[in-house]
């Protein structure tokens, strides 16, 4: 299942990448692969902007607009003028 085209904000700075493979390790949607000892983004549309790659990249090579893809969080954020934040606690799939 793929979400909207060309919306995910995920950037990889190849100059900083050492090909350690941490992003491949943590990404829940297999967005990255290592090719020729460097990480590449296979399909940006698969990215859900969870931010796992960025926070786990020891070389600061990744930049994600981290956030929750959750409608009620987005609406609440718009209404209160704050950052969208998840307010629920579902099982494994919420926000």
């Amino acid at each position: 299942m793929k979400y909207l085209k060309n919306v995910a904000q995920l950037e990889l700075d190849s100059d900083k990448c050492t090909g350690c493979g941490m992003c491949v390790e943590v990404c829940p949607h297999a967005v990255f692969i290592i090719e020729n000892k460097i990480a590449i983004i296979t399909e940006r549309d698969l990215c859900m902007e969870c931010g796992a790659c960025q926070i786990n990249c020891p070389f600061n090579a990744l930049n994600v607009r981290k956030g929750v893809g959750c409608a009620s969080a987005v609406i609440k954020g718009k209404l209160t003028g704050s950052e969208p934040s998840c307010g629920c606690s579902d099982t494994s799939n919420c926000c």
Partner: protein
Amino acid sequence: MGNCNCQSKKPNSVNKNNAVKVSTEMSIMDVIGSWKSRWNIGRMNYKVNPGLYITGEPDSDSEVFISSNYKMSFDILRKNLKGINAWIIVLDTAGINVWCAAGKGTFGTDELIRMIDKTSIKDCIDHKRIIVPHLGAPGISAHEVKKQSGLNVIYGPVKASDIKEFLKNNLKTTDKMKKVTFTLFERLILTPTEFVLSLKYSPLFLILLFLIDIIIGKNGLEVFYKDILIFFGTLFFGTILFPVLLPFLPFRSFALKGWILGLIYITSINLIVFNSVHGNYVHMLTAPILTSFLAYNFTGSSTYTSLSGVEKELKISLPLYGLSILSGVVVLLINFF
């Protein structure tokens, strides 16, 4: 309750926090508890105490698993540690599951470091490994944990049910273990919560429908009964059928998928109940908006939607919702005069 047996193995241990021994079997109360949670009964207050727990009889070679203090997360972990001697550190995530809490940052590096210190887990083990659930990664910086605690974060599988295989595989996750899915079953299990949550706003809608029907129609009450049926049908389509049909509905936008489903629903109702394709124009204009919104709301429960995408959907659909509802009001007024 048992004692942290690391104290006997390492006499100089500073660990004064007794680890709590937990069963790997689900009691009837656990089953009822998670069932209640699925139906949104007391879901926000289903917690375990943060701290150190053990399954079986762990020693200094046993693995350390990290979990959140949402009871369902913790229960799923301990259930899958059947026959395994292990340490479990439960972080304080305010009763929120691992993935949500990692997104918020409450399942995060700071909290992990705090609990590593508080539980004195390092006194219990001779190795330097801690196993963090794969979906905890958005909150944890593995290299930062290493720097601050000296412990190596190993990301485990997404699903606790893969833990045995993960252990057999020398703590390596296969590609399959790393990937988040959204199967029919995974979608279906979310529908009771979605449905119950949608009922919360129903009285408001029903009062509104009642007032409109009484003021406008000649047979107000009769129309109102039909509207009630159509309304609950809309909720059913938006919160139960939508999650089930998600991958089969055209387009990628949840709002658009939901609108199409709503249109199919209202057209079928019109054909069956009113014997005409368009039936009641007001229903045609408003019911798909409601399914569309419920579908859009389901992004929060899905496993693959991004913040940027959800924002984009709102930006596009909100004006269209407004326009459609306004048209509905105009039709209502035309019928009235």
